[in-house]
């Protein structure tokens, strides 16, 4: 063995050829933030058009491209890669491993992402425009009736799937093989647990999505009729396959955030997590249930009543393990000694707002009621309540919690709290009125609306602009923290637990070259 403590290479080649989990984690995080701003820009265009009734800024066809790209970029470009970035940075340090199990694969799974999104963004400039069938791209709107860019889009999805599968295999291999002596499964931090389960979900469902888009490719270019009744196929088949991927996908997006919150709440409550074992079992139960509820997205397609009942009951069951998690978090806070630094603020907001999203999810699970909610703004409100204060707030909480470890500096607490309150108020202003809009009958994915919806849409747009602008403050805070600030100790949070806090801040380029002893 050579020098154990050699530093990073110099210049661009450091980033191009790196196999270091911290470098790759950093690249994932910056890339996902760039995508967050891009997807956010699309959202701003959507909300600007919806600020008032009537068509003002964009044409309906372009509006559909915006809703489609907003969804795709946020799900595949912003949220998923940011959690992979967190996994890269944190999992080896949390389990006492020197690096990821498959470092070259790790480099590759990151570096195929930027070209894929460059291609996707380039479709905006193609003849016929970008994909416009929504992020769920139902056939035949996305096949027979799609612009030529659908072929490029299919290629992008294949690349993104490849990246996710490689990343997941790497995480599974790392967690199973590289734990420090004494780090048994039931001693792993919950972030590691939730990511392990997420990785299995990803490996299971990304190939299903790949199958769906390959069938689309065949329908578009090779004369097959998987999704066309005229040739013996079925458009609803697409929806079954898509949601068999799509429902586990929403848990892929949220489970790592559950893990993060399960570590931050105890740290700032200065009290151990309540019900560690039940948290693990609940996560596994949610992951299992996520495979048998997909058709609750399709109550109106005309399934037989037996199918409706099965999917309704199975979906309602998800409330049980999800409830267990919420009860555990709240009980962890109960009789703790709480303080409210930025990570804790985001984590507490996560619990409250995610629970509200969970409630509307339970309402949507009720098939007869869903006949009224389906494809309205009520659904838009629901999934933004689970994704924005769920996944995104989870990511913000993690960023503030571990920034001192990553950069060696404390972030500016006052600015961070400002960022929290602006995001919190903006997000609620943007998405809460959408519940009312949906109940009153506004369908989703429309570029213009009837007059009775005008006021709430305006409120929602104002909230969205506020939320959007606040994220530039986040960028400023992070850059400021990277460039300098109060020196962080190895363990800047007095209640924090875990191996990552036993190494200095900033974490050296190589950590745990010799495995730590876990008791």
């Amino acid at each position, binding site marked *: 063995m050579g020098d154990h403590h050699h530093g990073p290479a110099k210049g661009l080649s450091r980033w191009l050829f790196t196999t270091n989990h911290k470098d790759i984690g950093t690249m994932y995080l910056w890339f996902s933030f760039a995508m967050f701003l891009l997807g956010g820009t699309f959202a701003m265009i959507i909300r600007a058009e919806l600020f008032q*009734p*009537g*068509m003002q800024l964009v044409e*309906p*066809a372009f509006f*559909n491209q915006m809703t489609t790209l907003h969804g795709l970029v946020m799900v595949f470009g912003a949220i998923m890669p940011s959690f992979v970035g967190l996994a890269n940075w944190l999992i080896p340090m949390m389990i006492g491993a020197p690096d990821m199990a498959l470092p070259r694969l790790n480099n590759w799974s990151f570096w195929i992402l930027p070209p894929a999104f460059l291609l996707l963004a380039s479709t905006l400039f193609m003849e016929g425009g970008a994909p416009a069938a929504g992020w769920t791209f*139902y056939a*035949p*709107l996305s096949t027979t*009736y799609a612009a030529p860019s659908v072929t490029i889009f299919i290629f992008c999805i294949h690349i993104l799937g490849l990246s996710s599968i490689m990343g997941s295999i790497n995480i599974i291999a790392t967690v199973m093989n590289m734990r420090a002596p004494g780090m048994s499964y039931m001693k792993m931090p919950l972030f590691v647990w939730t990511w392990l389960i997420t990785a299995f979900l990803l490996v299971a469902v990304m190939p299903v999505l790949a199958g769906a888009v390959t069938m689309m490719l065949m329908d578009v270019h090779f004369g097959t009729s998987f999704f*066309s*009744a005229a040739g013996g196929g*079925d*458009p609803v088949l697409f929806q079954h396959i898509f949601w068999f991927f799509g429902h586990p996908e929403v848990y892929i997006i949220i489970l790592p955030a559950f893990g993060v919150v399960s570590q931050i709440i105890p740290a700032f409550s200065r*009290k*151990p*997590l*309540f*019900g560690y074992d039940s948290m693990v079992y609940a996560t596994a139960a949610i992951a299992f249930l996520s495979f048998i509820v997909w058709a609750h997205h399709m109550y*109106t*397609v*005309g399934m037989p*009543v037996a199918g*409706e009942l099965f999917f*309704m*009951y199975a979906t*309602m*069951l998800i*409330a*049980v393990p999800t409830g*267990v998690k*919420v*009860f555990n978090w709240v*009980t*962890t806070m*109960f*009789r*703790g*000694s*709480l303080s409210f630094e930025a990570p804790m603020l985001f984590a*507490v907001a996560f619990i*409250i707002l995610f629970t*509200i999203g969970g409630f509307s999810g*339970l*309402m949507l699970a*009720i*098939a*007869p*009621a869903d006949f*009224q909610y389906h*494809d309205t703004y009520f659904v838009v409100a629901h999934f933004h309540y689970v994704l924005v204060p769920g996944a995104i707030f989870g990511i913000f909480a993690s960023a503030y919690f571990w920034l001192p470890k990553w950069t060696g500096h404390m972030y500016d607490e006052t600015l961070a709290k400002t960022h929290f309150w602006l995001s919190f108020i903006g997000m609620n202003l943007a998405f809460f009125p959408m519940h*009312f809009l949906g*109940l*009153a*009958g506004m369908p989703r*994915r429309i570029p*213009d609306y*009837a*007059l*009775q919806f005008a006021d709430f849409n305006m409120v929602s747009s104002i909230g969205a602009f506020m939320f959007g602008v606040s994220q530039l403050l986040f960028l400023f805070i992070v850059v400021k923290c990277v460039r300098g600030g109060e020196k962080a100790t190895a363990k800047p949070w007095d209640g924090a637990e875990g191996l990552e806090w036993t190494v200095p801040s900033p974490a050296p380029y190589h950590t745990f070259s010799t495995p730590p002893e876990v008791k």
Partner: protein
Amino acid sequence: MSLNNLKRLLACAAGVLATLPGLALAAGGEKNALNMPVGVTDVGRSIFDLHMIILWICVAIGALVFGVMFYSIIYHRKSRGVKPAQFHESTKVEIAWTVVPFLILITMAVPATSTLLDIYDFDDAEMDVLVTGYQWKWKYEYLAEEGENVAFFSNLSTPQSEIYNTDDKNDNYLLEVDEPLVIPVDTKVRFLVTANDVIHSWWVPELAVKKDAIPGFINETWTRANEIGTYRGQCAELCGKDHGFMPIVVEVVSKEDYAAWLGEKQEQAAKVKELMAQTFTLDELMERGKAVYARNCLACHGARGEGGVGTAIAGSAIATGDIGGHLNIGINGVPGTAMQAFGGQLNDVDLAAVITYQRNAFGNNMGDLVQPIDVFNYKQG
């Protein structure tokens, strides 16, 4: 136990639960409505009750959970000098908060199942209407047991000038059509729902009906409106560019009015048959063609034939070329594109008129004209 007995039992259980608060915050269609409309059907009423029961259960659970949380946030702060407790597990508590929510879910599932079984009871419909979704309009066809089938398209009637903000918007902005669906009150109407191109979804909130219209398949759903009135809805499934511009308007009228209306429509259908045998002048065809164009072609081909989603008609090789080629496109469409086959959508008079219009408007002064008989002959091959 038979299905009916089971349903009755479930309905009783639902009734008991429905006595829980049934607060309606606002009726539908109103400005800034906060809640779902109760609507004018029994199914709509039970869906609304279900919605309110679940909402209030969620509110109660939320109050409890957030109550404990805010209590901790206020009283268990480090700044108050609180020393943290160290308890971190209790199997009994975990079992309790697994079992209790499960029981609550069962009380929700009972009325939900009952309502769902009602919605799926398609028996004993008194009349059938075939609803077909097109990009971007609806077609309604009354499947008559005797006499002519009545069929017509229902298009958005909001003018472009209101959409593009040059005129003030009227009260029914984007929720108005040239010809609404008309159904009788207190009658179980079964809708057979399908689509011609992509997936659409036929939704009228106050009739508590939403069903996807899927090309190549026929879905069924039904309603029985208890009150006369006008009810408005929209397409609920993204179906392309003008998804936001294909509303649904349903007029629920008295049974007598309905019979009179249907008779009139059947007479009209007979009259169109007569017209098909006539020969028209260029001016007559142009006038009729202009209206047909505005309803069917304008969205894609533009008000001045300048194109858009569709190709330009002004100066196009088809509109200024052989009449046979023009008829072919109009009747058969272009498969795999948004250009639909209008042969089955428009009657021969309207097709003749619109093709004549396209050949003589927008500077395409071809001077030739197409008569209904030409369309008829072309269709016959």
